[in-house]
C-alpha cells in the first residue's frame, strides 16, 4: 500500500450527496482484472455532461475531492477506490462515507477525511472562489488545512498507523499465525466445509 503522510494539492468540489459506487464507477467498467487503468471510468456517466465538475478546466489536476453526505454508499466494489486513485485523487472529504468504501479506501491509501457538513460547505465555497487554492491533508496530525479552514479528522488508530508506515496488513496479520492456528484447533467440529459439497 502507498504511504500517506502529508499531502499538498488542489481540490475539486463535488456538490452532491449520496454519491453511490455505481456513480463513481458504473458497473459496465468492472471489466478488467487489474487495480490500475480505471481513470477514464471514474464518474463515466456524469462526465458525459460537459458542465460536470470533472470537465471544468479550473479543477484539472485536483487531488482532493470534496463531496456531500454519504459518499461511496452501495456496492462493495473496490474499483470505486481504484478509479479515484487512478484519476489522481489522494483524499476524499465528505461529512459521511459508506462503510465498505471507507474500509476499501484505507486499504489502498486513499484517505477518507470525515468533516462536519458546515466545514465541507465552507471548503466548497473556498475552492469554488479560488480553484488554485492549496489544500494540505496531514495524517501525521490528522488535520486538513485550506485557507482559514483548519479542521481535524479522525482515522482509526490501526489504519492510521498502517497508512503512515505503508505497512502490508497481511504481513502484519501473519505475525499472529500461531494464534490463528490455535484458534482453529478450538473451532466447533460440526462447522461446514465447502470441499465436501
Amino acid at each position, binding site marked *: 500500500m502507498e504511504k500517506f503522510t502529508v499531502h499538498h494539492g488542489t481540490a475539486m468540489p463535488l456538490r452532491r450527496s449520496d454519491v453511490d459506487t455505481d456513480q463513481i464507477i458504473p*458497473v459496465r467498467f468492472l471489466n478488467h482484472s487489474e*487495480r490500475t487503468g480505471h481513470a477514464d471510468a471514474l464518474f463515466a456517466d456524469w462526465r458525459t455532461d460537459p458542465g460536470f465538475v470533472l470537465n471544468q478546466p479550473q479543477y484539472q489536476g485536483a487531488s482532493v475531492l470534496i463531496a456531500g453526505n454519504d459518499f461511496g454508499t452501495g456496492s462493495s466494489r473496490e474499483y470505486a477506490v481504484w478509479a479515484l486513485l487512478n484519476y489522481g485523487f489522494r483524499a476524499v472529504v465528505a461529512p459521511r462515507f459508506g462503510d465498505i468504501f471507507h474500509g476499501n479506501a484505507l486499504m489502498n491509501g486513499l484517505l477518507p477525511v470525515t468533516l462536519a457538513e458546515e466545514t465541507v460547505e465552507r471548503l466548497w465555497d473556498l475552492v469554488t472562489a479560488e480553484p488554485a487554492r492549496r489544500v494540505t491533508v496531514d495524517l501525521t496530525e490528522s488535520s486538513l488545512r485550506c485557507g482559514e479552514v483548519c479542521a481535524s479528522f479522525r482515522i482509526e488508530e490501526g489504519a492510521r498507523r498502517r497508512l503512515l508506515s505503508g505497512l502490508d*496488513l497481511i504481513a502484519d496479520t501473519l505475525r499472529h499465525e500461531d494464534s490463528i492456528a490455535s484458534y482453529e484447533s478450538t473451532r466447533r467440529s460440526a462447522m461446514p466445509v465447502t470441499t465436501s459439497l
Partner: protein
Amino acid sequence: MGSTLAEKVWNAHVVHPGDSGEDLLYIDLHLLHEVNTPQAFDGLRTAGRRVRRPDLTLGTEDHNVPTIAVDKPIQDPVARRQSELMRKNCAEFGIPLLRVGDPQQGIVHVIGPELGLTRPGMTIVCCDSHTTTQGAFGALAFGIGTSQVEHVLATQTLAMKRPRDMAVTVGGPLRPGVTAKDLVLALIARIGTAGGQGHIVEYRGTAIDALSMEGRMTLCNMTVEAGSRAGMIAPDATTLEYLAGRPGMPRGAAWNAEAEHWTQLRSDPDAVFDKEVVLDGGAVSPYVSWGTNPAQSVPLDGLVPDPGDFATESERAAARHALDYMALTPGTAMRDVPVDSVFVGSCTNGRIEDLRAVAEVLRGRKVAEGVHLMIVPGSASVRRQAVAEGLADVFDRAGADFRAGAGCSMCAALNEDRLRPGERAASTNNRNFEGRQGRGSRTHIVSPAVAAATAVSGRLAAPDDL
C-alpha cells in the same frame, strides 16, 4: 450488563484482540464471485502466498452469467474472460467453484443458505455488499472489498473494529399482502441510507418472529441499504426447520447438539444497544421507491413527493436530481406510473417463496400488452423447484419470460439483461441507483407481489388492485 447477539458472535471469533481498537476476527466462511476477486489472487501470487483454508472458501459464478443458453459457452467476451480467470484462480488455489451449469450454482447469497453452509453463529464474508442477507440465520455476515478478500484468503481472518449495536424492533403482525420487502423499504425510508451506518442491526419483535426464512433473508439483504454493516436475526424454530436436512448438516445427536447451541444465540434481556428503532409492522403497507436511492420510497398508496417538502437543502437537491432522472412529476399518484418492464429475481427476491408469490398473482392472468416480465431464479435449485411445483407453467401461460439460468441478471446488469436508456421498470432488486439496471434505466423497487400485479396492470399496482 448482558451482551448482544452480535457481540457474542464477534467475541467467539476473536483470534487476537487488537491493541488499537481492531480485533483480528476469524472467518468461518468466505464466498467468492467472479467480478471482484482477480486482483486478490494476483496479490497472493505476487507475494508468494497460499490460500490458508480452501475448505472454508467457495466460489460461484453469478454476477455476469447469462440467463439464456446456459448450456453454451458465455458469448460476451468480457464475461467469458472473467469466468475463465475465476476458474483458473480457483483451480490454482484449490478452491471449490460452482460453475454455470452446475446443479448447485446460483447467486452467492442464495446458495450459501440452500447448501447448508450458512449457519447460526458463524462469521461469513464475501466481496459483495449484500452478504448481509445471511445474517437472517443469526450469522455475522457482511460485505468486504477486494483487498480484504486477499487478506481473508491469506489468513482466514480480518482486522476490524467491532461495529456498534442497533436494535430494530417490529411489532406486528404485518397485514395480509404486506411482505418483508415492504417492511424494509418502510424502514429505510424512515431511517435513511445512513440510518444504520457503523452498526450491526438486530431485528426482533413479533413481526420478525412471524417471517419465513425467505422473508428474513430479504430483510437482512437490504439492511446494507440503510448503511448498516450487517443485519442479524436470532435463530429460532423457523431457522432450525429451514436448516434441518440441508447438505452437510449433522444428524441425530450431533444435530441436537448444534441445535441446542444455536438456540442459545440471542441477545441477553439486559443487553444494551447503542441505537434503537421501533416500528409498527401493522401500519406498513406495500412500498415502492420513487427516486434514485432506496430511502426515496413511499407507500404505493402515496404520491411522488414534492422536493420543496424536504427538511434540508441537501435533501431537496437530492430529490430534485432524482425526480429529474426518474422523469416523474411531484404529486403524481404512484399507481399512475406506467412501466415498460418488470424484473423478478436477485439476492433480495429470487428465492422459491418469491416465485410462489409471483405465480399466485399471475395464475389465470396475462402480462399487460407491451410489458416485459422477466423472472430469473436465484439458483439452479430454485428453478428446478419452480418447475416441479408447476410455477413455470403459470409463468408461461401468463406470458412471462422465465429464464433458464440463475444469477444476478438485471440487478447487477453485468450480463446482457439490462434496461435500455429511459426504460422504466418495477424491480424486486435492492438498488434504484442511476444506471443500476442499465445506462439511463429507471428503477422502482417493489416486492414480488407488487411486481407481478404491476406486470398485469402495466402500472404500479398491488394484487388487490387487479
